[in-house]
């Protein structure tokens, strides 16, 4: 295999896996909090979480660039104390990707938790179990389809990320050049064969992931009866 092709695919995979792992760690406690909180600004928080679904990726990418810029306090602080510059780096793209895929993780988990009868939580509490035990032994196992959906959607979405990576990361081989960018690049260079290879792989991975979601959810309905 062409080493650059392999490098690009490896980077794409690394970005998608890292995004998904970070998001599941953030997403589970956050979705739990969001599902049961009574704070007044909940609609605002829900709206903020969902913003990446309606905003063009270039808008978020632009704001990320502004935040990363050493001309502003956050970028300056990172630069001065950690000698880190996030713009046009893998880490910078990763942070942007986490923010951009947030709704794909939070929404299925949040909906799954809201769909459970309130009495599950209450029964577990009256049976003497803490919130943590209730979450891991009662709530989480009963929203398995939502967890699978959330993970698969997040993964598929981060694999296909284009606009935000281009804005924040540019097209640096081995650092920020992921498959979706490579396709664009190859087409620009009239390398249709290379573009076709990337496109086919992305197509197949996404198809496989979505088929998995649907078949697992279908199977889960049958499991519930057993």
């Amino acid at each position: 295999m062409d080493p650059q092709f392999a490098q690009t695919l490896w980077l794409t995979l690394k970005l998608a896996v890292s995004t998904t792992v970070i998001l599941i760690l953030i997403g589970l406690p956050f979705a739990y909090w969001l599902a049961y909180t009574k704070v007044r600004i909940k609609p605002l928080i829900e709206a903020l979480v969902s913003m990446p679904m309606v905003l063009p990726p270039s808008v978020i990418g632009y704001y990320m660039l502004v935040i990363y810029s050493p001309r502003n306090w956050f970028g300056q602080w990172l630069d001065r104390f950690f000698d880190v510059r996030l713009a046009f780096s893998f880490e910078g793209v990763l942070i942007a990707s986490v923010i951009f895929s947030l709704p794909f993780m939070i929404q299925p988990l949040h909906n799954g938790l809201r769909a459970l009868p309130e009495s599950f939580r209450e029964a577990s509490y009256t049976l003497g179990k803490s919130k943590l035990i209730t979450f891991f032994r009662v709530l989480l196992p009963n929203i398995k389809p939502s967890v699978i959906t959330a993970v698969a959607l997040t993964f598929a979405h981060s694999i296909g990320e284009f606009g935000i990576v281009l804005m924040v990361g540019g097209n640096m081989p081995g650092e920020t050049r992921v498959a979706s960018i490579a396709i664009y690049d190859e087409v620009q260079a009239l390398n249709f064969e290379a573009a076709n290879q990337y496109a086919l792989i992305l197509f197949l991975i996404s198809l496989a992931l979505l088929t998995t979601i649907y078949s697992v959810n279908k199977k889960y309905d049958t499991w519930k009866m057993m």
Partner: protein
Amino acid sequence: MENDVIDIDIEKMMLTANGPMNLAVRTTIPSGELIALFGESGSGKTTLLRILAGLVSPDKGSIKFRNTVWFDSGKQINIAPQQRNVSLMFQDFALFPNMTVEQNIQFAQPERDNTSVNELLDNFGLTEFRKRKPNGLSGGQKQRVALARALARKPQLLLLDEPLSALDAEMRHALQDEIAKAHSLSGVTTLMVSHDLNEVFRLASQVICIENGVITRNGKPEAVFSDNSISGKVQITGQIARIEKQDTIYVVTVTSGNNQIIKVIAFENDLENLKIGDRVMVFSKAFNPIISRLK
């Protein structure tokens, strides 16, 4: 009194379908008895159970269980449900679908004890379903699992929220026995929400009637539901389902527990303060009823 385990004196503003209602309950619950909370839906029975379980906080007042204060608005005490050692059996049973019957019961145990799991499974006729998930069970089986799970917690207080409301009459009857058995097995003080007179008479040694958020009557079921000044020997309590005028008289249809239908002749002045839906007692003098053996 020494026999009393729970002192309740609470108030809670509730939003009901008929507007706001103040739940104001002040009573004591005797130890080891099975007590029925009786009343219309929306009268505050379920909320009272949830307040006792610690799932809902009253606006003010106090709840004392033996020598432990569970709730005291003045002293800002509100013990969490986990620390109250109360089992609440929910109307929808709240069995966990991810666990088998056996695992549901094990989950409730304070410490793992397989012997007592087996005993509970055996007592409630669940041994053959132990490896099944709740979604594959019938309503009656689910109810038994829920009851077994509630007891597995070894609670100091058992709360049953209309435990049989989801079941048909025949099943109800069979499962009333299970509740009686559960109560006699554990001897735990039990509070049961019900709006079925038959159930109350059959199971409870004391009944507390709640209307619009306040206790209206409290005592033994016979005393609460029958007027002792009547020297009737046959008494049936029920609800008026229909009133029909026929010439100068009226035919009143009364439904009683177990789908029993009784037709009673009444005159216009009898009906002055009766209307459809009223709870009534049909009684007859000793020389009137005819008795015959059931084949």
